[in-house]
């Protein structure tokens, strides 16, 4: 009985909501597109400002994604919907999210990207899923890898050379035993790596081997909630230290794509596990 009441109202109100969204975009497209092109300036003083594009629709059932009307509006608008949806839930201060907040965000990210996004996977979770990201350096992918051998193109070299090589190795040592053995996957694992505070996970020390294996190259979706940019990243290092005040580290490529910087201007990101048991989801930037 519960399900029938719920389903009836949910389906009817979802359909109504879709119609309203279509109507809104159809009648006021120019103004809303103007907004989408200027959202960064508009939200500079108030993170929640973009909620005006859509009210909150928290979907408690990821397996039954809300059929959204975004498919009827231009692709560029989807990012604005994501920003506005996240703004409704995220706190103004950067703090660990409550479980309920994490669930709502998982729903939003899962339906936005069409993949399963979750703060907890196989019973394991990081100590937080929303925090400040700092900049990491390039990691050596194989013995002898250095700035001369690290980049595949001149463009990459120009963009990412100055961040330099980390003096140490990643948490899982090298990505390949030699230059010849380095695969495209290995390159991407270094290119889109994050350093996560895996050592702060509950039970990490008492179940070290289990957690180590779980976190090794574990895919995570990292999202800049201010601009809607997201990257499928993998955990390839442990850090940053708690004393830095940062909660996550991003490779030069990750930071560049997310438009995040270190230092006094460092900003927040969401980072949630991607459930990808068959390894089908490609590392790198991802669009709604």
């Amino acid at each position, binding site marked *: 009985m519960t399900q029938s*009441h*719920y389903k009836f109202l949910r389906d009817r109100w979802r359909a109504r909501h879709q119609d309203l969204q279509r109507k809104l975009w159809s009648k006021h497209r*120019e103004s809303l597109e103007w907004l989408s092109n200027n959202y960064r300036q508009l939200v500079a003083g108030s993170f929640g*400002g973009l909620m005006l594009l859509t009210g*909150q629709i*928290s979907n408690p059932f990821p397996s039954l994604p809300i059929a959204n009307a975004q498919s009827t509006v231009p692709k560029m608008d989807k990012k604005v919907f994501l920003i506005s949806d996240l703004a409704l839930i995220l706190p103004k201060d950067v703090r660990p999210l409550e479980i309920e907040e994490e669930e709502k965000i998982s729903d939003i990210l899962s339906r936005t990207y069409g993949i399963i996004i979750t703060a907890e996977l196989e019973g394991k979770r990081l100590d937080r899923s929303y925090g400040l990201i700092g900049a990491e350096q390039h990691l050596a992918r194989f013995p002898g890898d250095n700035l001369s051998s690290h980049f595949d193109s001149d463009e990459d070299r120009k963009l990412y050379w100055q961040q330099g090589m980390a003096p140490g190795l990643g948490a899982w040592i090298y990505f390949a035993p030699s230059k010849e053995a380095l695969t495209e996957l290995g390159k991407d694992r270094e290119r889109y790596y994050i350093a996560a505070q895996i050592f702060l996970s509950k039970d990490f020390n008492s179940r070290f081997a289990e957690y180590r294996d779980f976190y090794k190259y574990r895919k995570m979706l990292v999202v800049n909630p201010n601009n809607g940019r997201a990257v499928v990243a993998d955990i390839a290092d442990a850090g940053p230290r708690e004393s830095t005040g940062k909660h996550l580290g991003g490779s030069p490529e990750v930071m560049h794509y997310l438009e995040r910087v270190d230092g006094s201007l460092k900003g927040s990101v969401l980072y949630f596990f991607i459930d990808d048991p068959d390894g089908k989801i490609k590392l790198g930037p991802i669009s709604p």
Partner: protein
Amino acid sequence: MRKKYFYTHIVDTSTLSLEIGDMDLTPKERLHLISLIDSNIHHEILDLVLSELNSEDKKIFLTHLASEDHDKVWKFLNEKVENIEEKIKKTAEDLKRELYKDIKETKVRS
């Protein structure tokens, strides 16, 4: 906690929330339906307001809305649209009636 919109003080959705509260639903289902109510009303009101404004005024309105400065929103709307408060109330009431009918219908069907 439910979001406070610029019109929250003149649009009361508690009757709908109470109707849903009486239904045999899980807390998650109830919250989801309430969020759908809020979202539907929000879109109707946005459409109403934007439809009353010219192109430039729409941008000013959206800017005030984005800054979440409700006083500025109201000051601007009162200057630009006659009886905007009544229009918003009526739009919300019309939609609430429709949503209320849906609730009644599902109760009859059970």
